[in-house]
């Protein structure tokens, strides 16, 4: 998620504002400290123009 955000040249605050959560929540998700609901996952995916698999599915390609 961090790399997808960096690729779009957005800060945590920018993503937080688009999605409608606090910057701390985005930070906690990126660090793996918080598991977001599916609604928030979808909102983040839309904000970053990625799919759920790209951002939240860990395999050899997406790590």
């Amino acid at each position, binding site marked *: 998620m961090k790399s997808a955000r960096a690729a779009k040249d957005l800060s945590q*605050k920018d993503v*937080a*504002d688009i*999605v*409608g*959560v*606090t*910057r*701390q*929540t985005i930070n*906690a998700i990126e660090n793996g400290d*918080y598991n*977001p*609901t599916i*609604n*928030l996952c979808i*909102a983040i995916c839309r904000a970053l123009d990625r799919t759920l698999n790209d951002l939240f599915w860990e395999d050899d390609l997406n790590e």
Partner: protein
Amino acid sequence: MNKKGLDEMQVQKKNSIGNQAFVMLLYLLMLDAGLYGFGFRWISYPANVMIILTLTAGIYVIRLITANAFVGPAAKTEKPLMTVVMTMFFAALISAAILVLMNNTSFSSPGQIEEISAPLLFITAGVAMVVAITTLIIKRIQNREDE
């Protein structure tokens, strides 16, 4: 998504802290009742209950602020220092005014409300000031860490 209230992580934290504060309130009230049963009266009723409530509420609010679950994403604009200081001064002024009014009016029953009104109002004002200062300090520290 909803930008008016707390976000989902904040709601989760708030619920958890709220539950703990509620249990703490229960324990403190039970402890107070137990001490009273054994004949130990640290302060007369109703000041004991008010102090326990104020203490628990104060801890609840401070924990909410430190966990960043007090205000939602929409209300994140930083207030200038002068506004905070003025608010604190105004709160103290109102407390003092209420105290003077309560002493001058006859609705307070002698020996009960009058005895505890002063400490209660000062405790309330004190807690409000502690909360305001803590919010200010934590917000500044968090903002510095973010940058």
